């Protein structure tokens, strides 16, 4: 069965610092991978997704993620964090090939941004 591991439950960074959130997945075929963000009191918002092609994908809000098949990873990065990026971040893999609906999520990483 597929699974997603986000090793870091909570990360704290200073505003302006770079950020990398880790995500490892277990999936038998080529995965469809996603990063979602949940700001306080809000729903989940899609940051970016990987289906095929270029392994470095760009998303909204200045985020990017790199798919590394050899490491089964899909880490999320941002070169300079803003205070508004404080939120919980979820990595997910699609459980149904070719589909985006039946997602398996990681437990999430809570990001705190210090001024």
């Amino acid at each position, binding site marked *: 069965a597929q699974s997603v591991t986000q090793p870091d439950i909570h990360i704290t960074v200073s505003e302006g610092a770079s950020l990398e959130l880790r995500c490892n997945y277990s999936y038998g075929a080529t995965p469809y991978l996603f990063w979602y963000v949940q700001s306080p*009191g809000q729903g*989940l918002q899609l940051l970016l997704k990987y289906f095929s092609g270029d392994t470095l994908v760009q998303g909204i809000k200045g985020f990017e993620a790199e798919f590394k098949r050899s490491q089964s990873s899909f880490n999320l990065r941002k070169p300079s964090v803003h205070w508004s990026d404080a939120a919980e971040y979820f990595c997910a893999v699609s459980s149904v090939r*070719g589909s*985006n*609906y*039946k*997602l398996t999520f990681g437990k*999430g990483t809570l990001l705190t941004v210090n001024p």
Partner: protein
Amino acid sequence: EAGVTQFPSHSVIEKGQTVTLRCDPISGHDNLYWYRRVMGKEIKFLLHFVKESKQDESGMPNNRFLAERTGGTYSTLKVQPAELEDSGVYFCASSLRTQDASPLHFGNGTRLTVT
């Protein structure tokens, strides 16, 4: 366009009572999904509607949970009778299609507390 709307935002009920959660998807979205996040755990898929039909309900925990989608518009998720372990945040999402190009739009969730 209006987003996915969920009612209520919070619900506190006693064990053994019944609760009904409602989701209004984005207009025109045939696909509607329910997910749940129990405290400290991953967000997990519950079920998927295509219009008024249940396409996949493999994630429903047990027969105390009943989901309906009248006329292919809004959906309700009833828990009867509620148990302590049902506490968590219930998310609804909708999409135009299930194929990869169609993103899931999530609502803000309903936080259910069973005491």
